């Protein structure tokens, strides 16, 4: 995990340096804030990976001499077919149409969104299909 | 059992790539630069599509353009030659697997460091021209340029002259030659672009912002201008002209064209797009002096 951490942290350091230079030279609020926020966005996962990489067991994908046998076993949870992404997508669509055509679109919109959030969470807890 | 198709590589050619061509390529690269420099010194530098223009800053911008273009031709030409060379000289001649070179640190350092140096040089040249352009020399003439949907209004503060025109009325901004002219650029509504091709220059007219710059024309003449920033329906017709005249002609034009007020001029302009208040010859005055 160390390479991932280094990639994110070095990007963050670069954005930090850039925002300091830009802020002092240009005194422009919007750009300075946005660049500084970019630095924070990189430091958040980057810092976490850095902290964690020093405490975790070596993963097979970080080991240049790993064999495929070391990767045997469960990799992750991969829910199979699911109606909830479609439902949530349609809900978001109607919510956006509400912005354009009138607030009453929020009824199907938020309805579908909430239904999908509940359904999708329940499906995740159930384990879904293969 | 289904047939599996393979894409056949092109037919083999009997000859391979000789070592001689490799040496010739190296020699050619070393020789190319001084030859180009000599050739350039001997003849005039091509325009590369731009023109010197009518102001002092348009001239220096033009020379910067030429400098960048020489660099682009050299770098682009070299790179194009390398691409075409690789495409033709190393095209597949057999089924052999070539040497699997993966890196060459000195070469990679070279084509990292040299572009950095080129870029720093381009930046230095840019700063020289840019500092001249954004400098604030003492100016003797001031013109307020106001952009609106879809025309231009030129006000000469303290002189009581206003020139205004919409779209194809094509208002003319008169200014004196060999004089530092200060422009105050504003917009009444949306963003417009004040662009004069012969000045190699454009600047946005931003609502709520006063943009200021200096122009010093060195050639008399009439030059086309146009709005370049999308501003709505008649953006394409928002044209104007800049007429650079001698200083005496400018003074005469000012006295001959003192308007009563901007309001009157604007009124007449918005009434019908038939007659224009733009004076083409001096000595046409509107209202009392």
């Amino acid at each position, binding site marked *: 995990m160390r390479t991932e951490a280094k990639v994110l942290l070095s990007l963050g350091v670069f954005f930090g340096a850039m925002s300091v230079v830009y802020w002092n030279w240009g005194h422009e609020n919007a750009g300075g804030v946005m660049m500084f926020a970019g630095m924070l966005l990189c430091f958040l996962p980057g810092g976490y990976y850095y902290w964690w990489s020093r405490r975790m067991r070596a993963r097979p994908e970080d080991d240049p001499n790993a064999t495929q046998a070391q990767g045997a076993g469960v990799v992750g949870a991969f829910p199979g077919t699911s109606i909830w992404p479609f439902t949530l997508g349609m809900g978001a669509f109607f919510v956006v149409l509400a912005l354009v055509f009138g607030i009453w679109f929020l009824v199907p919109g938020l309805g579908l969104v909430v239904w999908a959030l509940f359904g999708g969470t329940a499906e995740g807890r159930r384990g879904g299909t293969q | 059992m289904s047939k599996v198709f393979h894409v056949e590589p092109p037919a083999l050619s009997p000859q391979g790539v000789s070592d001689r061509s490799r040496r010739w390529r190296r020699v050619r690269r070393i020789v190319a630069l001084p030859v180009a420099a000599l050739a350039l010194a001997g003849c005039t530098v091509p325009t590369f599509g731009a023109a010197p223009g009518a102001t002092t800053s348009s001239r220096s911008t033009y020379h910067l353009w030429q400098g960048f273009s020489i660099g682009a031709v050299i770098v682009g030409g070299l*790179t194009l030659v390398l691409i075409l060379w690789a495409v033709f000289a190393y095209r597949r001649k057999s089924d052999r697997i070539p040497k699997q070179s993966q890196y060459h640190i000195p070469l990679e350092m070279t084509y990292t460091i040299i572009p950095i140096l080129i870029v720093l040089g381009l930046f230095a040249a840019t700063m020289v021209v840019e500092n001249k352009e954004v400098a604030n020399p003492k100016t003797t003439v001031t013109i307020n340029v106001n952009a609106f949907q879809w025309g231009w209004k030129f006000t000469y503060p303290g002189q009581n002259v206003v020139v205004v025109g919409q779209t194809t009325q094509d208002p003319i901004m008169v200014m004196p030659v060999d004089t530092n002219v200060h422009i105050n650029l504003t917009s009444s509504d949306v963003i417009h672009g004040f662009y004069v091709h012969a000045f190699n220059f454009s600047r946005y007219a931003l609502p709520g912002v006063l943009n200021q710059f200096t122009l010093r024309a060195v050639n008399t003449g009439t030059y086309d201008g146009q709005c370049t920033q999308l501003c709505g329906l008649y953006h394409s017709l928002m044209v104007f002209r800049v007429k650079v005249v001698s200083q005496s002609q400018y003074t005469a034009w000012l006295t001959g064209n003192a308007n009563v007020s901007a309001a009157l001029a604007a009124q007449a302009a918005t009434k019908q797009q038939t007659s224009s208040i733009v004076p083409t010859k001096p000595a046409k005055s509107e209202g009392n002096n």
Partner: protein
Amino acid sequence: MTDVLDPPVVAAHGDHDDEHEEHHGPTGILKWMTTTDHKVIGMSYTVTAVIMMVIGGALAEIIRAQLTTPNNSLVSFAQFNELFTMHGSVMIYLFVGPFAFGALANIIVPIQIGAPDMAFPRLNALSYWLYLTGSITMLSGFFVAGGAANFGWVAYAPLSNSINTPGAGADLWIGGLLLTGFSAIFTGVNLCATIFYLRAPGMTMFRMPIFTWNLLVTAILILLAFPVLTAGLIMLYCDRHFGTHIFTVPGGGVPVLWQHIFWFWGHPEVYILALPFFGMVTEIIAVFSRKPVFGYKGMVFATLSIGALSLGVWAHHMFTTGVVLLPFFSIMSLLIAVPTGIKMFNWIGTMWRGEVWFSTAMLMAVGFLITFLIGGLTGIYLASPPLDFFTHDTYFVVAHFHSIVMALVMGAMGGLYYWGPKITGYLLNETIGKIQFWFLFIGTQVFTLPMYLLGLRGMPRRIPVYPLHPSWQFLNQLSTVGAVLVGVSTVAFMVNIVYSWKKYPAGDNPWDGHTLEWFTTSPPPHHNFYRLPQIRSERPTWDYNHPGHTAAEHGHHADHHPEHHDEVPVV
């Protein structure tokens, strides 16, 4: 001994056999609506994006037809403003972007790193539905009173406020972008998580294919930039409908703030568009030169540099506003040329002393190199404020970015010809492909090169007529001819798809590819791999197939440990 192993096991509560699933799962349209398989989602993205390309292209042909004479009345002024706004919007937001990070990336990145799927398959599916509905939303602007959005694809304030652009078309444009924006953000999350967590054993970060590296940097850029656009769009919507004054002067707002927010997203966006195609071209050139990528670490460093620098150059789109720090943005923009040049020379170095063979994919890659060279060089001019002052908002800029995006389109076509067989199991016809290439390449130069001259002669952009400058007509007509040639190449592509439908079975590895995706079947099975080879370099399939050619005197990879060279690959 090269060792292969059964694929990583996916977790499920209870044990589901793959074969049972095929009988019990949904079928037909319901199967498509409920899929979370990254390959199916990626195909959906590809088909949708190509449809968007055709729509955007049709809009372009109308624009070019209008501009063939100085005072044409093929379309009205109002319609023309809608045409170029939607042409740019459809091409950038709905075609190139989603194609770059949603289509081929979705399909190829997991297989390139040995993963069974993306890290969040349902989120992946949601990304597609948001993209589809967002596209429909934006395009439905054409069918409302007042027409589609007409303020340019950049929607500068105050032109885009409710006084200057009332009407639902603009709001549909904003709404469509909110949906596609979230689609992109979720894809960015998915790509990062997949690349960080689902690589196969032995696939260290520095053994990932360059395409995957480029998608990683693209994903990080998406996460950095797209939320900024989304925020800006919400602000614009509030100004339009909730009486706020963020971008309007009466009330204390600052119009140029929109430009800062928009371009802070907008410049990383063009690298989000470009980096995936850089990756595609890298893969294609290596395979069709039968050599490894030259300067792998340099490529990774260059990609990271481009990503980092891209966040600091946005105001080079605003040089003529007069209110930005010119020297800062100038030097940062000039510096981006350096890593781009490194990539260019690495691509040439990959071909150098190789055995280069020109399938359609490789032709497209070479076309990309030449066209991108032109576009990249002209971009350097624009990084210099004095030179930008007289080229900004003229056809010079239009030509510059069209050179770039047409190069990206060539990369996209190369990617489709290269990976199409892996995804579908069938090759495309090479003769028709070469016809497509030549029309695309020549057509691109014929339509862009006159535009550079037009811009230098003073022709502004976004104008439907140029009555005062009849001398511009010839170059405009030339450009229109070029656009027609490009249209012909698109038709050739469609013809090829129909003609080659299920005609040429491809096999696992028709191109002798290097990376992990070529180790599995075409198309890959459910969860992608029956077997995985040992991974000891960035070219696991090449190492497996050509054990005697894994290292070279000139470059010995730090991660690479020479294996036994006398092994026979296991069939």
